[in-house]
């Protein structure tokens, strides 16, 4: 059985995910996305993974959501509130969403995962640090290089002055 904290967290997470996609203003949408990401951090806390939860808070809520918010503010004002979408495609998308939820949900409920409970103590987060510095240290170095490369790439892309659009047809 689930407890009240879990229920409240899941309602908050999924509700604000829907709000983030459906609300008219992109600014409120990115704030709702921030709430979704914080809800996921709450799930990590429930799963006894405080280190991952803090990482999620600092990386997602602290930097990614703020980055999205600033990008939204760079865009022209009427585009933020502009919501263009196909009615037919929207209904098809809702159908796809419900089919995925019901399909995968039924498969999971029917599987043997239902009886899976644990009483074992949670993993000590010192173990994660040991993993990072011993077995996964090459991967950590590669990840650092990937992060540096992506930041340099993003900066060069966003700061280019010579971007012109020659193929514009209109």
């Amino acid at each position, binding site marked *: 059985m689930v407890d009240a904290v879990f229920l409240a967290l899941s309602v908050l997470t999924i509700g604000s995910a829907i709000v983030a996609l459906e609300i008219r203003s992109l600014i409120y949408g990115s704030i709702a996305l921030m709430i979704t990401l914080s809800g996921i951090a709450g799930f990590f806390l429930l799963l006894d*993974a405080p280190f991952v939860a803090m990482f999620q808070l600092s990386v997602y809520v602290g930097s990614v959501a703020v980055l999205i918010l600033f990008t939204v503010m760079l865009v022209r004002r009427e585009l933020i509130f502009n919501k263009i979408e196909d009615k037919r495609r929207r209904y098809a998308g809702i159908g796809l969403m419900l089919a995925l939820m019901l399909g995968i949900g039924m498969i999971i409920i029917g599987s043997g995962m239902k009886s899976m409970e644990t009483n074992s103590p949670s993993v000590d987060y010192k173990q994660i640090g040991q993993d990072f510095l011993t077995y996964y240290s090459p991967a950590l170095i590669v990840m650092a290089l990937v992060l540096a490369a992506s930041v340099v790439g993003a900066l060069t892309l966003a700061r280019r002055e010579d971007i012109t659009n020659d193929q514009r047809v209109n």
Partner: protein
Amino acid sequence: MTNGLIDFVLVSVALLAIGIYGMAVKRNAIRMLFGVEMIINSANLNLVAFARFIPNSQGQTLALFSIAIAAAEVAVGLALVIVAYRMYKNIDIEDFRSLKG
């Protein structure tokens, strides 16, 4: 622990379905990035949940890697959105059609 594994997995499935809905329906480039974020977060939730119930620590390690890579992805994606906005003066993906031939 009172919550079973299946509860977390079901929340993750719901978030995945909402993210796929956002990517399929929305034409706004930034809203599509929201969908990508939701899908990545549902994957992370799955990783940590299974790691808690096995239990081992490598799921959490992998989730940390995944979060870092997702941050890099968002940085590049938003830079692409800004470049496309400067070229087309719009963030509607139906207008980004110079690759259409």
